[in-house]
Protein backbone atom coordinates (compact mmCIF):
# COMPACT_ATOMS: atom_id res chain seq x y z
CA UNK A 1 0.00 0.00 0.00
CA UNK A 2 1.07 3.57 -0.55
CA UNK A 3 -0.20 4.67 2.84
CA UNK A 4 2.51 6.12 5.06
CA UNK A 5 3.56 3.49 7.59
CA UNK A 6 4.52 4.42 11.10
CA UNK A 7 7.71 3.01 12.52
CA UNK A 8 7.16 0.11 14.91
CA UNK A 9 8.27 2.27 17.82
CA UNK A 10 5.81 5.04 16.92
CA UNK A 11 2.96 2.60 16.43
CA UNK A 12 3.77 0.94 19.75
CA UNK A 13 3.86 4.32 21.46
CA UNK A 14 0.36 5.07 20.20
CA UNK A 15 -1.10 1.92 21.72
CA UNK A 16 -3.17 2.26 24.84
CA UNK A 17 -0.72 1.67 27.74
CA UNK A 18 -2.31 -1.56 28.96
CA UNK A 19 -2.38 -2.95 25.42
CA UNK A 20 1.31 -2.07 25.09
CA UNK A 21 2.05 -4.33 28.06
CA UNK A 22 0.25 -7.19 26.34
CA UNK A 23 1.80 -6.48 22.93
CA UNK A 24 5.30 -6.62 24.42
CA UNK A 25 4.70 -10.22 25.50
CA UNK A 26 3.94 -11.37 21.94
CA UNK A 27 6.95 -12.40 19.85
CA UNK A 28 7.17 -11.58 16.14
CA UNK A 29 5.38 -13.93 13.80
CA UNK A 30 3.37 -15.69 16.52
CA UNK A 31 -0.22 -16.80 15.98
CA UNK A 32 -2.68 -15.04 18.25
CA UNK A 33 -6.36 -15.32 19.17
CA UNK A 34 -7.55 -12.11 20.85
CA UNK A 35 -10.67 -12.73 22.95
CA UNK A 36 -12.94 -9.73 23.30
CA UNK A 37 -10.78 -7.82 20.85
CA UNK A 38 -13.02 -4.72 20.89
CA UNK A 39 -12.30 -2.39 18.01
CA UNK A 40 -9.15 -4.31 17.11
CA UNK A 41 -6.52 -1.79 18.24
CA UNK A 42 -4.17 -4.41 19.71
CA UNK A 43 -4.77 -7.00 17.02
CA UNK A 44 -4.09 -4.53 14.23
CA UNK A 45 -0.81 -3.51 15.82
CA UNK A 46 0.24 -7.14 16.21
CA UNK A 47 -0.70 -8.04 12.63
CA UNK A 48 0.80 -5.00 10.96
CA UNK A 49 3.90 -4.40 13.04
CA UNK A 50 4.78 -7.78 14.48
CA UNK A 51 3.84 -10.01 11.57
CA UNK A 52 1.44 -11.90 13.77
CA UNK A 53 -1.18 -14.25 12.34
CA UNK A 54 -4.09 -12.74 14.24
CA UNK A 55 -7.71 -13.65 14.77
CA UNK A 56 -10.26 -12.06 17.07
CA UNK A 57 -13.53 -12.82 18.81
CA UNK A 58 -15.79 -9.92 19.72
CA UNK A 59 -19.35 -9.76 21.01
CA UNK A 60 -20.47 -6.34 19.79
CA UNK A 61 -21.53 -5.58 16.22
CA UNK A 62 -19.80 -2.19 16.38
CA UNK A 63 -16.57 -3.89 17.47
CA UNK A 64 -16.67 -6.47 14.70
CA UNK A 65 -17.40 -3.79 12.09
CA UNK A 66 -14.49 -1.69 13.38
CA UNK A 67 -12.18 -4.71 13.20
CA UNK A 68 -13.23 -5.54 9.63
CA UNK A 69 -12.60 -1.90 8.71
CA UNK A 70 -9.06 -2.38 10.01
CA UNK A 71 -8.71 -5.41 7.75
CA UNK A 72 -8.78 -7.95 10.58
CA UNK A 73 -10.29 -11.42 10.71
CA UNK A 74 -12.81 -11.38 13.54
CA UNK A 75 -15.72 -13.59 14.54
CA UNK A 76 -18.70 -12.38 16.44
CA UNK A 77 -19.11 -14.62 19.43
CA UNK A 78 -19.72 -14.87 23.14
CA UNK A 79 -16.73 -15.92 25.26
CA UNK A 80 -19.08 -17.25 27.92
CA UNK A 81 -19.88 -20.08 25.49
CA UNK A 82 -16.24 -21.14 25.43
CA UNK A 83 -13.97 -21.79 22.48
CA UNK A 84 -15.31 -25.21 21.49
CA UNK A 85 -14.74 -24.73 17.75
CA UNK A 86 -11.01 -24.18 18.15
CA UNK A 87 -8.72 -27.22 18.08
CA UNK A 88 -6.21 -27.75 20.94
CA UNK A 89 -3.09 -25.60 20.73
CA UNK A 90 -4.17 -24.03 17.45
CA UNK A 91 -2.60 -20.70 18.49
CA UNK A 92 0.71 -19.73 20.10
CA UNK A 93 -1.08 -17.18 22.27
CA UNK A 94 -4.59 -16.44 23.41
CA UNK A 95 -5.17 -12.92 24.76
CA UNK A 96 -7.78 -11.61 27.17
CA UNK A 97 -7.23 -7.92 27.82
CA UNK A 98 -9.31 -6.02 30.40
CA UNK A 99 -12.20 -8.46 30.00
CA UNK A 100 -11.79 -10.98 32.83
CA UNK A 101 -13.80 -8.94 35.42
CA UNK A 102 -16.80 -9.11 33.07
CA UNK A 103 -16.88 -12.89 32.60
CA UNK A 104 -19.02 -15.24 34.69
CA UNK A 105 -16.68 -18.22 34.73
CA UNK A 106 -12.98 -17.30 34.93
CA UNK A 107 -11.88 -20.89 35.46
CA UNK A 108 -13.66 -22.05 32.30
CA UNK A 109 -12.32 -19.25 30.12
CA UNK A 110 -8.72 -19.51 31.38
CA UNK A 111 -8.88 -23.30 30.91
CA UNK A 112 -10.12 -22.80 27.35
CA UNK A 113 -7.43 -20.19 26.69
CA UNK A 114 -4.72 -22.62 27.72
CA UNK A 115 -6.27 -25.44 25.73
CA UNK A 116 -6.47 -23.41 22.50
CA UNK A 117 -3.26 -21.43 23.04
CA UNK A 118 0.14 -22.71 24.18
CA UNK A 119 0.35 -19.59 26.32
CA UNK A 120 -2.32 -17.16 27.51
CA UNK A 121 -1.89 -13.45 28.17
CA UNK A 122 -4.37 -11.89 30.59
CA UNK A 123 -4.56 -8.26 31.72
CA UNK A 124 -7.00 -6.78 34.22
CA UNK A 125 -7.51 -3.76 36.46
CA UNK A 126 -6.28 -4.19 40.01
CA UNK A 127 -8.74 -3.40 42.77
CA UNK A 128 -5.92 -3.89 45.26
CA UNK A 129 -4.48 -0.50 44.22
CA UNK A 130 -4.02 1.67 47.30
CA UNK A 131 -6.49 4.30 46.17
CA UNK A 132 -9.21 1.66 45.81
CA UNK A 133 -8.47 0.43 49.32
CA UNK A 134 -8.54 3.96 50.67
CA UNK A 135 -11.76 4.78 48.87
CA UNK A 136 -13.58 1.86 50.45
CA UNK A 137 -12.11 2.66 53.85
CA UNK A 138 -12.83 6.38 53.82
CA UNK A 139 -16.03 6.69 51.79
CA UNK A 140 -17.61 3.28 52.40
CA UNK A 141 -18.25 2.95 48.68
CA UNK A 142 -17.17 0.18 46.33
CA UNK A 143 -14.31 1.69 44.34
CA UNK A 144 -14.28 1.69 40.58
CA UNK A 145 -11.26 -0.02 39.13
CA UNK A 146 -8.55 2.47 38.22
CA UNK A 147 -9.19 2.02 34.51
CA UNK A 148 -12.85 1.07 34.22
CA UNK A 149 -15.26 4.01 34.02
CA UNK A 150 -18.29 1.94 35.10
CA UNK A 151 -20.04 2.10 38.43
CA UNK A 152 -21.11 -1.08 40.20
CA UNK A 153 -24.69 -0.92 38.86
CA UNK A 154 -23.83 -0.37 35.21
CA UNK A 155 -23.78 -3.00 32.48
CA UNK A 156 -21.83 -5.03 31.73
CA UNK A 157 -21.51 -6.08 35.37
CA UNK A 158 -18.03 -6.73 36.70
CA UNK A 159 -16.51 -8.58 39.58
CA UNK A 160 -13.75 -6.84 41.51
CA UNK A 161 -10.56 -8.79 42.30
CA UNK A 162 -6.94 -8.03 43.01
CA UNK A 163 -3.60 -9.21 41.71
CA UNK A 164 -3.19 -11.26 44.88
CA UNK A 165 -6.58 -12.88 44.29
CA UNK A 166 -5.56 -13.73 40.76
CA UNK A 167 -2.19 -15.19 41.73
CA UNK A 168 -3.87 -17.36 44.34
CA UNK A 169 -6.51 -18.47 41.87
CA UNK A 170 -3.79 -19.49 39.40
CA UNK A 171 -1.99 -21.56 42.07
CA UNK A 172 -5.22 -23.31 43.01
CA UNK A 173 -6.20 -24.14 39.44
CA UNK A 174 -2.78 -25.34 38.31
CA UNK A 175 -1.92 -22.37 36.13
CA UNK A 176 1.68 -21.12 36.12
CA UNK A 177 2.43 -17.41 35.84
CA UNK A 178 5.48 -17.28 33.56
CA UNK A 179 5.58 -13.55 32.80
CA UNK A 180 4.26 -10.37 34.36
CA UNK A 181 4.17 -6.60 33.83
CA UNK A 182 2.40 -3.78 35.61
CA UNK A 183 1.09 -0.29 35.07
CA UNK A 184 0.84 2.39 37.69
CA UNK A 185 -1.26 5.36 36.66
CA UNK A 186 -0.83 4.61 32.97
CA UNK A 187 2.95 4.11 33.11
CA UNK A 188 4.84 0.85 33.23
CA UNK A 189 6.26 0.08 36.67
CA UNK A 190 10.02 -0.15 36.34
CA UNK A 191 10.55 -1.67 39.76
CA UNK A 192 7.68 -4.08 40.29
CA UNK A 193 7.52 -4.10 44.09
CA UNK A 194 4.36 -4.16 46.19
CA UNK A 195 2.52 -4.56 42.92
CA UNK A 196 -0.85 -5.38 44.49
CA UNK A 197 -0.69 -2.07 46.34
CA UNK A 198 0.92 0.16 43.74
CA UNK A 199 -0.21 -1.05 40.33
CA UNK A 200 -3.43 -0.13 38.52
CA UNK A 201 -3.27 -2.89 35.91
CA UNK A 202 -1.47 -6.21 35.76
CA UNK A 203 -0.68 -8.30 32.68
CA UNK A 204 0.35 -11.93 33.00
CA UNK A 205 1.61 -14.66 30.73
CA UNK A 206 0.11 -17.99 31.76
CA UNK A 207 0.97 -21.58 31.01
CA UNK A 208 -0.57 -24.87 32.07
CA UNK A 209 1.43 -26.47 34.88
Amino acid at each position, binding site marked *: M*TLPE*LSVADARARLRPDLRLVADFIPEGASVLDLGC*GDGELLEFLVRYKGVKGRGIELS*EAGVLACVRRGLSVRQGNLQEGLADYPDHSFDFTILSQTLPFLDDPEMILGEMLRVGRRAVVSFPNWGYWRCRLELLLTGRIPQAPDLPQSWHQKPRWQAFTITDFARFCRQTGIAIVGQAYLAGGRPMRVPKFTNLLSTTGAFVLAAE
Partner: protein
Amino acid sequence: MTEIQAPPTHPLGVVETQYYTFAVDEPFVLESGATLSPVTVAYETYGTLNEARSNAVLVCHALSGSAHAAGLDARGQPGWWDDCIGPGKAFDTDRFFVICCNVLGSCYGSTGPSSIDPATGKPYGLRFPVVTIGDMVRSQIAVLDHLGIEKLLCVAGGSMGGMQALEWAAHYPERIRAAIPLATTARSSPMLIAFSEVGRQAIYADPNWQAGDYYGNGKRPDAGLALARMIGHITYLSEESMHKKFGRRLQGRERFGYEFETEFQVESYLRYKGQVFTQRFDANSYLYITKALDYFDLTGNAEHPQDAIQSLAQVFAGARHVKFLVVSFTSDWLYPSYHSREIVSALTAAGADVTYLDIQSSWGHDAFLLEVETMTGLLRSFMDRIAQEEGIAPPADVSRPAQRPAAVPVESLPSRENALWAA
Protein backbone atom coordinates in the same frame (compact mmCIF):
# COMPACT_ATOMS: atom_id res chain seq x y z
CA MET B 1 -44.66 -0.89 -23.51
CA THR B 2 -42.94 2.47 -23.22
CA GLU B 3 -39.19 2.50 -23.49
CA ILE B 4 -37.60 3.81 -20.30
CA GLN B 5 -34.66 5.99 -21.22
CA ALA B 6 -31.52 4.85 -19.44
CA PRO B 7 -30.21 7.67 -17.27
CA PRO B 8 -26.82 8.50 -18.75
CA THR B 9 -25.35 8.98 -15.28
CA HIS B 10 -25.24 5.28 -14.34
CA PRO B 11 -21.53 4.58 -14.16
CA LEU B 12 -21.83 1.08 -15.63
CA GLY B 13 -24.28 2.19 -18.32
CA VAL B 14 -26.35 -0.41 -20.16
CA VAL B 15 -24.87 -3.87 -19.72
CA GLU B 16 -25.45 -6.55 -22.30
CA THR B 17 -26.08 -10.12 -21.21
CA GLN B 18 -23.74 -12.62 -22.87
CA TYR B 19 -24.29 -16.31 -23.55
CA TYR B 20 -21.92 -19.26 -23.49
CA THR B 21 -23.05 -22.60 -24.88
CA PHE B 22 -21.16 -25.80 -24.07
CA ALA B 23 -21.74 -29.56 -23.82
CA VAL B 24 -22.67 -29.55 -27.49
CA ASP B 25 -20.88 -32.79 -28.41
CA GLU B 26 -20.29 -34.28 -24.97
CA PRO B 27 -23.37 -33.99 -22.75
CA PHE B 28 -23.20 -32.29 -19.36
CA VAL B 29 -23.67 -35.01 -16.73
CA LEU B 30 -25.77 -33.81 -13.83
CA GLU B 31 -25.46 -34.82 -10.17
CA SER B 32 -28.57 -36.98 -10.63
CA GLY B 33 -26.88 -38.91 -13.43
CA ALA B 34 -29.15 -37.41 -16.09
CA THR B 35 -27.55 -35.54 -18.97
CA LEU B 36 -28.16 -32.21 -20.66
CA SER B 37 -26.96 -31.13 -24.09
CA PRO B 38 -26.34 -28.45 -25.05
CA VAL B 39 -26.12 -26.14 -22.05
CA THR B 40 -26.28 -22.37 -22.30
CA VAL B 41 -25.35 -20.04 -19.45
CA ALA B 42 -26.34 -16.38 -19.54
CA TYR B 43 -23.82 -14.12 -17.82
CA GLU B 44 -22.83 -10.50 -17.41
CA THR B 45 -19.47 -9.00 -16.54
CA TYR B 46 -18.51 -5.63 -15.08
CA GLY B 47 -15.03 -4.14 -14.92
CA THR B 48 -11.89 -5.47 -16.58
CA LEU B 49 -10.02 -8.71 -16.10
CA ASN B 50 -6.40 -7.87 -15.23
CA GLU B 51 -3.44 -9.35 -17.03
CA ALA B 52 -2.75 -11.92 -14.31
CA ARG B 53 -6.46 -12.89 -14.43
CA SER B 54 -6.45 -12.66 -10.66
CA ASN B 55 -9.15 -10.06 -9.97
CA ALA B 56 -12.29 -12.02 -10.88
CA VAL B 57 -15.21 -11.99 -8.47
CA LEU B 58 -18.21 -14.24 -9.06
CA VAL B 59 -21.50 -13.08 -7.57
CA CYS B 60 -24.28 -15.66 -7.35
CA HIS B 61 -27.96 -14.80 -7.43
CA ALA B 62 -30.83 -16.13 -5.34
CA LEU B 63 -33.99 -18.02 -6.35
CA SER B 64 -35.58 -15.56 -8.73
CA GLY B 65 -32.49 -13.60 -9.77
CA SER B 66 -30.78 -13.27 -13.11
CA ALA B 67 -27.33 -12.59 -14.53
CA HIS B 68 -28.22 -8.91 -14.45
CA ALA B 69 -26.52 -8.00 -11.18
CA ALA B 70 -25.44 -4.41 -11.89
CA GLY B 71 -25.73 -1.56 -14.34
CA LEU B 72 -28.85 -1.14 -16.45
CA ASP B 73 -30.53 -3.59 -18.75
CA ALA B 74 -32.02 -2.62 -22.13
CA ARG B 75 -35.17 -1.41 -20.37
CA GLY B 76 -33.22 0.77 -17.96
CA GLN B 77 -33.67 -1.52 -14.95
CA PRO B 78 -30.78 -1.66 -12.49
CA GLY B 79 -29.28 -5.05 -11.55
CA TRP B 80 -30.27 -6.95 -8.42
CA TRP B 81 -27.07 -6.06 -6.53
CA ASP B 82 -26.46 -2.66 -8.09
CA ASP B 83 -25.98 -1.20 -4.60
CA CYS B 84 -22.81 -3.21 -4.15
CA ILE B 85 -21.31 -3.55 -7.65
CA GLY B 86 -19.84 -0.63 -9.60
CA PRO B 87 -17.02 1.90 -9.57
CA GLY B 88 -16.14 2.77 -5.98
CA LYS B 89 -18.73 0.35 -4.57
CA ALA B 90 -18.08 -2.69 -2.37
CA PHE B 91 -17.27 -4.83 -5.40
CA ASP B 92 -15.31 -2.04 -7.02
CA THR B 93 -15.40 -2.49 -10.79
CA ASP B 94 -12.37 -0.18 -11.11
CA ARG B 95 -10.47 -2.90 -9.34
CA PHE B 96 -12.33 -6.18 -9.80
CA PHE B 97 -13.75 -8.08 -12.74
CA VAL B 98 -17.23 -9.03 -11.55
CA ILE B 99 -19.14 -11.90 -13.16
CA CYS B 100 -22.70 -13.02 -12.57
CA CYS B 101 -24.14 -16.17 -14.17
CA ASN B 102 -27.82 -17.06 -14.40
CA VAL B 103 -28.36 -20.47 -12.77
CA LEU B 104 -29.28 -23.63 -14.63
CA GLY B 105 -33.02 -24.23 -14.55
CA SER B 106 -33.81 -20.51 -14.57
CA CYS B 107 -35.73 -18.59 -17.22
CA TYR B 108 -33.35 -15.69 -17.75
CA GLY B 109 -31.26 -17.05 -20.59
CA SER B 110 -29.61 -20.12 -19.07
CA THR B 111 -30.91 -23.53 -20.07
CA GLY B 112 -34.05 -24.38 -18.13
CA PRO B 113 -37.48 -25.99 -18.48
CA SER B 114 -38.68 -23.23 -20.83
CA SER B 115 -35.72 -23.80 -23.20
CA ILE B 116 -36.21 -25.77 -26.39
CA ASP B 117 -35.45 -29.47 -26.04
CA PRO B 118 -33.40 -30.31 -29.16
CA ALA B 119 -34.88 -33.84 -29.13
CA THR B 120 -38.43 -32.62 -29.64
CA GLY B 121 -38.08 -29.07 -30.90
CA LYS B 122 -40.44 -28.01 -28.12
CA PRO B 123 -39.85 -26.52 -24.66
CA TYR B 124 -38.63 -29.10 -22.14
CA GLY B 125 -41.33 -28.59 -19.53
CA LEU B 126 -41.04 -31.44 -17.02
CA ARG B 127 -38.74 -33.37 -19.37
CA PHE B 128 -36.02 -31.03 -18.18
CA PRO B 129 -33.78 -32.94 -15.73
CA VAL B 130 -33.72 -31.91 -12.07
CA VAL B 131 -30.62 -29.81 -11.36
CA THR B 132 -28.76 -29.18 -8.10
CA ILE B 133 -26.73 -26.35 -6.58
CA GLY B 134 -23.66 -28.45 -7.50
CA ASP B 135 -24.78 -28.54 -11.15
CA MET B 136 -25.28 -24.76 -11.11
CA VAL B 137 -21.73 -24.30 -9.81
CA ARG B 138 -20.28 -26.64 -12.43
CA SER B 139 -22.01 -24.62 -15.14
CA GLN B 140 -20.34 -21.52 -13.69
CA ILE B 141 -17.00 -23.31 -13.86
CA ALA B 142 -17.59 -23.92 -17.57
CA VAL B 143 -18.09 -20.18 -18.06
CA LEU B 144 -14.93 -19.35 -16.08
CA ASP B 145 -12.92 -21.86 -18.13
CA HIS B 146 -14.31 -20.20 -21.25
CA LEU B 147 -13.21 -16.78 -19.91
CA GLY B 148 -9.77 -18.19 -19.05
CA ILE B 149 -10.12 -17.66 -15.30
CA GLU B 150 -8.36 -20.39 -13.35
CA LYS B 151 -8.88 -18.94 -9.88
CA LEU B 152 -11.49 -16.56 -8.52
CA LEU B 153 -10.47 -13.85 -6.10
CA CYS B 154 -13.85 -14.25 -4.44
CA VAL B 155 -17.25 -15.87 -4.78
CA ALA B 156 -20.15 -14.12 -3.07
CA GLY B 157 -23.89 -14.48 -2.76
CA GLY B 158 -26.87 -14.42 -0.44
CA SER B 159 -29.53 -17.07 0.21
CA MET B 160 -29.31 -19.56 -2.68
CA GLY B 161 -26.35 -17.50 -3.90
CA GLY B 162 -24.71 -18.22 -0.55
CA MET B 163 -25.30 -21.94 -1.06
CA GLN B 164 -23.39 -21.68 -4.31
CA ALA B 165 -20.55 -19.87 -2.55
CA LEU B 166 -20.41 -22.69 0.04
CA GLU B 167 -20.52 -25.32 -2.71
CA TRP B 168 -17.50 -23.64 -4.30
CA ALA B 169 -15.66 -23.66 -0.99
CA ALA B 170 -16.52 -27.30 -0.28
CA HIS B 171 -15.81 -28.82 -3.68
CA TYR B 172 -13.65 -26.38 -5.63
CA PRO B 173 -11.57 -24.68 -2.92
CA GLU B 174 -8.48 -24.65 -5.14
CA ARG B 175 -10.28 -22.30 -7.50
CA ILE B 176 -11.16 -19.58 -4.97
CA ARG B 177 -9.24 -17.30 -2.60
CA ALA B 178 -12.19 -15.94 -0.64
CA ALA B 179 -15.89 -16.65 -0.19
CA ILE B 180 -18.78 -14.53 1.11
CA PRO B 181 -21.84 -16.63 1.99
CA LEU B 182 -24.63 -14.32 3.21
CA ALA B 183 -27.92 -15.21 4.94
CA THR B 184 -27.59 -18.82 3.95
CA THR B 185 -27.21 -22.39 5.19
CA ALA B 186 -25.06 -25.43 4.57
CA ARG B 187 -28.19 -27.58 4.46
CA SER B 188 -31.80 -26.76 3.69
CA SER B 189 -33.91 -27.07 6.80
CA PRO B 190 -37.17 -29.05 6.89
CA MET B 191 -38.98 -25.72 7.22
CA LEU B 192 -37.33 -24.44 4.04
CA ILE B 193 -38.33 -27.62 2.22
CA ALA B 194 -41.86 -27.23 3.60
CA PHE B 195 -42.22 -23.74 2.20
CA SER B 196 -40.77 -24.88 -1.13
CA GLU B 197 -43.30 -27.67 -1.30
CA VAL B 198 -46.25 -25.42 -0.49
CA GLY B 199 -45.14 -23.11 -3.29
CA ARG B 200 -44.86 -26.03 -5.69
CA GLN B 201 -48.27 -27.36 -4.65
CA ALA B 202 -49.76 -23.95 -5.46
CA ILE B 203 -48.40 -24.32 -9.00
CA TYR B 204 -49.43 -27.98 -9.42
CA ALA B 205 -52.96 -27.06 -8.27
CA ASP B 206 -53.39 -24.47 -11.02
CA PRO B 207 -55.25 -26.21 -13.90
CA ASN B 208 -53.37 -24.00 -16.33
CA TRP B 209 -50.13 -25.66 -15.30
CA GLN B 210 -51.05 -28.71 -17.43
CA ALA B 211 -48.29 -30.88 -15.97
CA GLY B 212 -45.76 -28.33 -17.13
CA ASP B 213 -46.78 -28.29 -20.81
CA TYR B 214 -48.29 -24.84 -20.89
CA TYR B 215 -45.81 -23.19 -23.24
CA GLY B 216 -47.40 -21.69 -26.30
CA ASN B 217 -50.99 -22.76 -25.66
CA GLY B 218 -52.07 -19.41 -24.24
CA LYS B 219 -52.77 -20.63 -20.73
CA ARG B 220 -50.10 -20.12 -18.05
CA PRO B 221 -50.33 -21.10 -14.37
CA ASP B 222 -50.18 -17.47 -13.27
CA ALA B 223 -52.49 -17.92 -10.29
CA GLY B 224 -50.38 -20.79 -8.92
CA LEU B 225 -47.10 -19.01 -9.49
CA ALA B 226 -48.44 -15.80 -7.92
CA LEU B 227 -49.57 -17.74 -4.84
CA ALA B 228 -46.17 -19.44 -4.58
CA ARG B 229 -44.49 -16.05 -4.72
CA MET B 230 -46.84 -14.59 -2.08
CA ILE B 231 -45.88 -17.38 0.29
CA GLY B 232 -42.23 -16.77 -0.54
CA HIS B 233 -42.52 -13.07 0.25
CA ILE B 234 -43.96 -13.81 3.68
CA THR B 235 -40.89 -15.91 4.45
CA TYR B 236 -38.53 -13.12 3.30
CA LEU B 237 -40.06 -10.62 5.73
CA SER B 238 -40.35 -10.75 9.50
CA GLU B 239 -43.21 -10.12 11.87
CA GLU B 240 -41.54 -6.87 12.89
CA SER B 241 -40.85 -5.69 9.36
CA MET B 242 -44.47 -6.37 8.41
CA HIS B 243 -45.57 -4.24 11.34
CA LYS B 244 -43.25 -1.47 10.21
CA LYS B 245 -44.06 -1.76 6.54
CA PHE B 246 -47.83 -2.27 6.64
CA GLY B 247 -49.14 -2.24 10.17
CA ARG B 248 -52.87 -2.96 10.09
CA ARG B 249 -53.38 -0.15 7.61
CA LEU B 250 -56.10 -0.48 4.99
CA GLN B 251 -55.43 -0.01 1.31
CA GLY B 252 -57.48 2.67 -0.49
CA ARG B 253 -60.34 2.67 2.02
CA GLU B 254 -61.27 4.15 5.39
CA ARG B 255 -63.14 1.33 7.09
CA PHE B 256 -63.72 -2.40 6.84
CA GLY B 257 -65.99 -3.47 4.01
CA TYR B 258 -66.96 -6.81 5.59
CA GLU B 259 -66.32 -8.52 2.29
CA PHE B 260 -63.55 -10.51 0.58
CA GLU B 261 -61.93 -7.71 -1.36
CA THR B 262 -58.30 -6.86 -0.73
CA GLU B 263 -58.53 -4.60 2.30
CA PHE B 264 -55.27 -4.57 4.24
CA GLN B 265 -52.08 -3.10 2.83
CA VAL B 266 -50.24 -6.33 3.47
CA GLU B 267 -52.75 -8.21 1.29
CA SER B 268 -52.42 -5.66 -1.45
CA TYR B 269 -48.61 -5.85 -1.28
CA LEU B 270 -48.54 -9.63 -1.53
CA ARG B 271 -51.05 -9.68 -4.41
CA TYR B 272 -49.05 -7.08 -6.26
CA LYS B 273 -45.77 -8.95 -5.71
CA GLY B 274 -47.38 -12.19 -6.83
CA GLN B 275 -48.89 -10.65 -9.91
CA VAL B 276 -45.78 -8.86 -11.15
CA PHE B 277 -43.78 -12.03 -10.57
CA THR B 278 -45.90 -13.91 -13.12
CA GLN B 279 -44.87 -11.35 -15.71
CA ARG B 280 -41.20 -12.00 -15.16
CA PHE B 281 -40.80 -15.60 -14.06
CA ASP B 282 -41.60 -19.08 -15.32
CA ALA B 283 -43.61 -21.44 -13.10
CA ASN B 284 -41.60 -24.52 -14.11
CA SER B 285 -38.34 -22.71 -13.29
CA TYR B 286 -39.80 -22.02 -9.85
CA LEU B 287 -40.40 -25.75 -9.41
CA TYR B 288 -36.88 -26.72 -10.51
CA ILE B 289 -35.00 -24.09 -8.55
CA THR B 290 -36.89 -24.72 -5.30
CA LYS B 291 -36.10 -28.42 -5.77
CA ALA B 292 -32.41 -27.56 -6.09
CA LEU B 293 -32.67 -25.60 -2.82
CA ASP B 294 -34.30 -28.56 -1.07
CA TYR B 295 -31.58 -31.02 -2.08
CA PHE B 296 -28.76 -28.82 -0.84
CA ASP B 297 -26.94 -30.40 2.11
CA LEU B 298 -23.18 -30.24 2.52
CA THR B 299 -23.31 -32.12 5.83
CA GLY B 300 -24.05 -35.51 4.29
CA ASN B 301 -27.44 -35.78 5.98
CA ALA B 302 -26.16 -35.46 9.57
CA GLU B 303 -28.84 -35.84 12.22
CA HIS B 304 -27.43 -33.88 15.16
CA PRO B 305 -26.02 -30.36 14.98
CA GLN B 306 -22.68 -31.51 16.42
CA ASP B 307 -22.37 -34.24 13.77
CA ALA B 308 -23.29 -31.66 11.16
CA ILE B 309 -20.48 -29.38 12.29
CA GLN B 310 -17.98 -32.23 12.30
CA SER B 311 -18.87 -33.50 8.85
CA LEU B 312 -18.98 -29.92 7.55
CA ALA B 313 -15.50 -29.35 8.96
CA GLN B 314 -14.33 -32.35 6.92
CA VAL B 315 -16.11 -31.05 3.82
CA PHE B 316 -14.31 -27.72 4.26
CA ALA B 317 -10.93 -29.33 5.02
CA GLY B 318 -9.61 -28.31 1.60
CA ALA B 319 -10.70 -24.70 2.13
CA ARG B 320 -8.38 -23.79 4.98
CA HIS B 321 -6.55 -21.34 2.73
CA VAL B 322 -9.83 -19.62 1.81
CA LYS B 323 -10.80 -16.42 3.61
CA PHE B 324 -14.46 -16.29 4.54
CA LEU B 325 -16.89 -13.53 5.38
CA VAL B 326 -20.08 -15.08 6.78
CA VAL B 327 -23.04 -12.82 7.58
CA SER B 328 -26.44 -13.56 9.05
CA PHE B 329 -29.29 -11.30 10.16
CA THR B 330 -30.98 -11.41 13.54
CA SER B 331 -34.56 -11.41 12.22
CA ASP B 332 -34.02 -13.90 9.37
CA TRP B 333 -36.23 -16.85 10.31
CA LEU B 334 -35.97 -18.57 6.93
CA TYR B 335 -32.18 -18.94 7.23
CA PRO B 336 -31.77 -18.40 10.99
CA SER B 337 -28.46 -17.14 12.37
CA TYR B 338 -27.60 -20.47 13.97
CA HIS B 339 -27.28 -21.96 10.48
CA SER B 340 -24.52 -19.46 9.78
CA ARG B 341 -22.94 -20.14 13.15
CA GLU B 342 -22.76 -23.83 12.24
CA ILE B 343 -20.91 -22.89 9.09
CA VAL B 344 -18.57 -20.64 11.09
CA SER B 345 -17.92 -23.36 13.68
CA ALA B 346 -17.11 -25.89 10.96
CA LEU B 347 -14.81 -23.47 9.15
CA THR B 348 -13.05 -22.59 12.42
CA ALA B 349 -12.56 -26.27 13.20
CA ALA B 350 -11.20 -26.76 9.68
CA GLY B 351 -8.66 -24.00 10.38
CA ALA B 352 -10.01 -21.53 7.82
CA ASP B 353 -9.87 -17.77 8.27
CA VAL B 354 -13.45 -16.72 9.08
CA THR B 355 -14.95 -13.33 9.75
CA TYR B 356 -18.51 -13.56 11.01
CA LEU B 357 -21.18 -11.05 11.96
CA ASP B 358 -24.84 -11.45 12.89
CA ILE B 359 -26.24 -8.07 11.86
CA GLN B 360 -29.01 -6.53 13.96
CA SER B 361 -31.84 -6.04 11.51
CA SER B 362 -35.63 -6.22 11.50
CA TRP B 363 -35.90 -6.93 7.78
CA GLY B 364 -35.91 -10.71 7.92
CA HIS B 365 -34.28 -12.66 5.12
CA ASP B 366 -34.54 -9.68 2.76
CA ALA B 367 -32.01 -7.87 4.96
CA PHE B 368 -29.05 -9.07 2.92
CA LEU B 369 -30.19 -6.79 0.12
CA LEU B 370 -31.81 -4.10 2.31
CA GLU B 371 -29.19 -3.38 5.00
CA VAL B 372 -27.25 -1.49 2.35
CA GLU B 373 -25.14 0.73 4.56
CA THR B 374 -23.82 -1.94 6.92
CA MET B 375 -23.40 -4.49 4.13
CA THR B 376 -21.57 -2.06 1.86
CA GLY B 377 -19.11 -1.15 4.61
CA LEU B 378 -18.53 -4.75 5.56
CA LEU B 379 -18.14 -6.10 2.01
CA ARG B 380 -15.96 -3.22 0.99
CA SER B 381 -13.56 -3.56 3.92
CA PHE B 382 -13.35 -7.31 3.43
CA MET B 383 -12.73 -6.99 -0.31
CA ASP B 384 -10.07 -4.32 0.32
CA ARG B 385 -8.30 -6.67 2.67
CA ILE B 386 -8.51 -9.64 0.29
CA ALA B 387 -7.31 -7.52 -2.62
CA GLN B 388 -4.39 -6.20 -0.59
CA GLU B 389 -3.40 -9.63 0.71
CA GLU B 390 -3.64 -11.16 -2.75
CA GLY B 391 -1.73 -8.31 -4.37
CA ILE B 392 -4.50 -6.81 -6.50
CA ALA B 393 -3.53 -3.23 -7.29
CA PRO B 394 -5.76 -0.51 -5.88
CA PRO B 395 -7.73 1.49 -8.46
CA ALA B 396 -5.69 4.04 -10.37
CA ASP B 397 -7.97 6.86 -9.26
CA VAL B 398 -6.18 8.25 -6.22
CA SER B 399 -8.75 10.96 -5.59
CA ARG B 400 -10.85 8.51 -3.63
CA PRO B 401 -9.99 8.38 0.06
CA ALA B 402 -7.80 5.52 1.19
CA GLN B 403 -9.70 2.76 2.93
CA ARG B 404 -7.52 2.26 5.93
CA PRO B 405 -5.71 4.94 7.85
CA ALA B 406 -2.11 4.09 8.71
CA ALA B 407 -2.92 4.31 12.37
CA VAL B 408 -5.85 5.56 14.35
CA PRO B 409 -5.02 8.11 17.00
CA VAL B 410 -5.92 6.90 20.47
CA GLU B 411 -8.23 9.84 21.07
CA SER B 412 -10.53 8.93 18.20
CA LEU B 413 -11.24 5.40 19.34
CA PRO B 414 -14.67 4.98 20.85
CA SER B 415 -13.85 2.18 23.26
CA ARG B 416 -14.86 2.42 26.88
CA GLU B 417 -11.37 2.45 28.33
CA ASN B 418 -10.10 5.35 26.27
CA ALA B 419 -12.15 7.85 28.17
CA LEU B 420 -9.87 7.14 31.07
CA TRP B 421 -6.53 6.86 29.34
CA ALA B 422 -7.08 10.07 27.44
CA ALA B 423 -8.04 11.92 30.62
